[in-house]
């Protein structure tokens, strides 16, 4: 089962490179996404057997992040069909500078997209320190060509920054893994073994290892001040890729940090690691707030919002207690909401032909469905009731108050308020009013159904939390437990 989950996207990804027929390849993409989602759903019913001597195990945390990845990939795959048809085989005019450019071959795009899914699946399954690292690195390499889908100098710049900054980050995480090996001595580098024999870990090297891994995976996760690749990569890649990067990839790096935190907490270094996480979390939120206010590019706006939410996740884990549960729930909420917003942003970009916030007006009239989703997405992502993120952000606030950290709670609330005002001013101005340039349009269903489904899920999570999901979140929170 575990092996099938991995092999299906990997093998079909390989096939997609070779298929000569574009429509067939698109059908294959959706079919693979459906199969992957089906298999993931099956894992909820019956947890699959461990593989490769305990190196590949689907534990609660893995299942949670696998489910997020699989859901988003399905939405992205359906959306991609119409997107690829529209972008197919013709030279496009650049929205910002007006020059002409062509796209990467569709075979490369779909092939890399499926390999990207395989790499992310491997991240969620890996229980071995080294294997997890290899998987995270593989996600970088598989996604770099995806960012360079539009062949022009800005996307090339974004790809180069992404490759270089993330490779350096990942290299530091590798050094952290070596430090962890030194700290572990003769203990095998499998996470459950490390937790079980945490008493034997060398404290000094363990601290150094955590710091390096946090900086390494934090780069990939987009924690400030290591986030510099993120706005560029998110704004220059196609909407499908932005959605997956923000909703699925950042979570994969977060999972790496969670695993490391698991070992740290067991080794009695919880206070040390948690204070680092709280620090990175608040800095990320502050940096994001500074760049969100007055942002002129709406895709960059969403990208900075991802930096903010990654900060919230780190903060939740760092606060401990109920904050861990809140952070896990928030990971789900943020992924669904942000992926939905990036897909809608793709529709707006398609209709208006610009990424500038000033040039978009009257989205509610021009794109009736996408416009409504845009406003709903704004409310959801800024943590307004009745959407899911409200619940999770509130849980994290409660954790801060429970822990008696009034300063953290006040900073958190103040930053959330600034970001709410910053995002609302920009995004509402885009939705309201009348556009003089663009006539109202009929939208194709593949462009609106995936984001609408994600929006419905976010709304549902705000009103009703299914028992099974709560149970899974509690199990995951327990892994990071209050040792």
């Amino acid at each position, binding site marked *: 089962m575990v092996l099938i989950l991995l092999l299906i996207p990997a093998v079909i990804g390989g096939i997609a490179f070779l298929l000569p027929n574009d429509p067939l390849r698109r059908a294959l993409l959706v079919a693979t996404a459906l199969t992957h989602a089906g298999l993931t759903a099956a894992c909820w019913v019956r947890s699959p057997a461990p593989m490769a001597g305990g190196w590949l195990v689907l534990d609660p945390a893995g299942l949670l992040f696998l489910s997020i990845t699989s859901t988003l990939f399905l939405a992205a795959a359906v959306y991609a069909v119409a997107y690829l048809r529209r972008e197919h085989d013709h030279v496009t005019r650049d929205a910002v500078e007006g020059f002409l450019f062509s796209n990467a071959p569709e075979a490369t795009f779909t092939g890399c997209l499926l390999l990207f899914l395989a790499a992310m699946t491997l991240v969620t399954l890996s229980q071995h*320190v*080294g*294997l997890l*690292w*290899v998987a995270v*690195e*593989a996600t*970088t*390499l598989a996604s*770099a*060509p995806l960012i*360079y889908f539009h*062949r*022009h*100098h*800005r996307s*090339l*710049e*974004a*790809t*180069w*920054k992404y*490759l*270089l900054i993330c*490779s*350096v980050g990942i*290299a530091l995480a*590798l*050094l952290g*893994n*070596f430090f962890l*090996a*030194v*700290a*572990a*001595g*003769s203990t095998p*580098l499998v996470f459950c073994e490390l937790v079980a024999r945490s008493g034997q870990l*060398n404290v*000094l*090297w363990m601290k*150094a290892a955590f710091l390096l891994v946090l900086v390494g995976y934090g780069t990939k996760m987009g924690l400030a001040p290591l986030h510099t690749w993120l*706005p*560029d990569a998110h*704004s*220059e890649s196609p909407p499908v890729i932005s959605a997956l990067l923000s909703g699925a990839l950042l979570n994969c790096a977060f999972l790496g940090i969670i695993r490391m935190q698991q070992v740290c907490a067991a080794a009695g270094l919880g206070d040390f690691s948690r204070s680092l996480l709280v620090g990175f979390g608040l800095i990320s939120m502050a940096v994001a707030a500074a*760049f969100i206010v007055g*942002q002129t590019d709406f895709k*960059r706006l969403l990208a900075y919002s991802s930096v903010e939410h990654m900060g919230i996740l780190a903060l939740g884990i760092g606060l401990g207690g109920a904050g861990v549960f809140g952070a896990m729930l928030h990971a789900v909420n943020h992924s669904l909401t942000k992926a939905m917003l990036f897909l809608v942003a793709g529709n707006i970009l398609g209709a208006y032909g610009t990424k500038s916030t000033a040039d978009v007006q009257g989205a509610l009239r021009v794109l009736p469905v996408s416009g409504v989703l845009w406003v709903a997405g704004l409310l959801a992502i800024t943590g307004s009731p009745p959407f899911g993120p409200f619940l999770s952000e509130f849980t994290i606030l409660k954790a801060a108050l429970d822990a008696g950290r009034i300063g953290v709670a006040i900073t958190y609330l103040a930053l959330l308020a600034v970001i709410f005002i910053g995002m609302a001013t920009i995004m509402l101005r885009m939705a309201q009013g009348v556009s003089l340039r663009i006539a109202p349009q009929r939208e194709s269903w593949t462009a609106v159904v995936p984001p609408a489904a994600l929006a419905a899920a976010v709304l549902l999570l705000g009103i009703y939390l299914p028992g099974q999901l709560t149970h899974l979140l509690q199990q995951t929170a327990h892994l990071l437990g209050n040792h």
Partner: protein
Amino acid sequence: MTLDIILILVVLIDLRLLGASRIEASIRIVALQGILLGLLTVLEHYGDLTVSVWLVAVGGAVLKGVVFPWLLVRALRSSDAKREFEPFVGPIASLLAGVAALGMSLWLAQRLPLPQAPHASLLVAVALFSILVGLFLIIARKKAISQVLGFLVMENGIYTFGAGLVRQSPLLVEFGVMLDVFVAVFVMGIALFHISREFDHINAHELATLKD
């Protein structure tokens, strides 16, 4: 003893890189460093030389000593770039920074004694020094190709640490490392070709339109 000589050579190579101005010469020096590290792996495991140790050592030496340099030299020649670095930080200032980094690495290595092998602090210091030099080269040089070189030097530092110290860890991990370094540099190599085609030169300095 031989081990120490190799480590000192690695440090000298790092310092030479900081003062270098010609790219092609630097590529060759980094290649030499890769081969030295292969030798280091063999010497470290001298008592128990299994097949996998040989594979890691020889594989690493071939990749870093032959394949990467060939790839990078090709990328360099395919572009009309001037064959010099055009650094943000000049050679003398770079060397001074290198000396400071060396001091810092030695100090850090003192603070982090290895539990299993307390005498190997030179190895830790050399590994940290290579990593710092690699990071410095990435930041302080304009050309994209020199950033790849910096990345390689940094990886060499990490490899020094891994090959020398993590004896208990399964070699499979080290294989994964080799594989990933290979693929990372390969993908970066492809990106370099695209950059040289798009801009007619591989100057990362030009990659600066995206900002807030």
